[in-house]
């Protein structure tokens, strides 16, 4: 499945970079504007399961990398055998100072909580998301806490260390 998909991807889109280390995994790098269309293409070609949306902070580079991890359900995939699981990751990089992406909820509906989480913990804005409200956090953080320049120990010292004991 992977070699043919790699060929068709490269012939369909001219701005994606595909690397496939072996027959079961593939990494697709696409610019941020073509994420929805590439994702739709991958979905139509059998990768109908969005397992995870994740994010990596490349601090020195000044970029945030959003990773969509895809695989396929067994029922739709005739080539699936137990020894050949397919893992495809679709990556894109957005600038760190103005991270904005289009939401992919219209393609994969289960991306909704992942995008909310990434918005909250990394500060990536997903345009078209219906509710980017806080999901886990209770406090307001100046820097989203999963970014590399968030100084956890200093934050802990300032926030929790400054609270006095009630009874010594």
């Amino acid at each position, binding site marked *: 499945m992977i070699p043919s998909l790699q060929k068709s991807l490269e012939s369909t889109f001219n701005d994606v970079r595909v690397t496939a280390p072996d027959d079961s995994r593939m990494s697709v790098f696409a610019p941020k504007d073509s994420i929805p269309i590439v994702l739709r293409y991958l979905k139509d070609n059998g990768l109908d399961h969005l397992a995870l949306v994740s994010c990596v902070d490349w601090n020195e580079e000044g970029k945030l990398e959003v990773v969509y991890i895809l695989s396929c359900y067994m029922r739709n995939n005739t080539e699936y055998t137990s020894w050949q699981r397919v893992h495809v990751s679709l990556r894109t990089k957005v600038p760190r100072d103005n991270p904005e992406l289009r939401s992919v909820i219209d393609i994969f509906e289960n991306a909704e909580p992942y995008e909310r989480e990434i918005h909250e913990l990394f500060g990536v804005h997903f345009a078209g998301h219906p509710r980017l409200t806080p999901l*886990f*956090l209770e406090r307001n953080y100046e820097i989203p806490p999963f970014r590399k320049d968030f100084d956890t*120990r200093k934050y802990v010292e300032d926030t*929790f260390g400054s*609270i006095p*004991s*009630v*009874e010594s």
Partner: protein
Amino acid sequence: MDRNQITKWLKSPGKMAHKYSLHAVYFCTGCGIIEIPPVITTRWDAERFGIIPVATPRQGNLFMITGYVALKTLKAIIRTYEQMPDPKYTVGFGSCPINGGMYWDSYNTIKHLDKYIPVDGWIAGCMPRPEAVFIGVTHLWTLIDKGMADGYLRYRKNYAAYRRNQEMVLGELDWPPLYPAAGETEEVTQ
């Protein structure tokens, strides 16, 4: 019933009744709660010690905080604690409520639980074994006997300070103070 304890029963029946009917609130926090099912079920039958889990905080008087306390959990813990009837005993279970444990530098977990609600006893360990729960319970008995498990009294006494700490970490709380404003002028004396 132990014959040696008959005098105790006659002297302070209330204390003895509190000791042997600890009703634990089913409040699951963090990973420590995985030790509680073996404690309450047949292998280490907790009912030997008079402990049974109850459904709502309004029926319970033993509150075990079994793991790291995130800010969201702290909110629930405070609300649960304030709903429990007196007398109520709080036990911190595991190292995370004591000083943060392995989450000592986490951005979202409080480190010292006793800054926000009063705690009567700690069970240290990561994880404590079920036996440690029973050792903790027998220590709690001793404390109740001596009148030292007075967390609910300390909460009433130092409510202003506790409430201030809660508001410092959680921002504006969306429920009214448990005790009236007269206690708010009271300062911590110790």
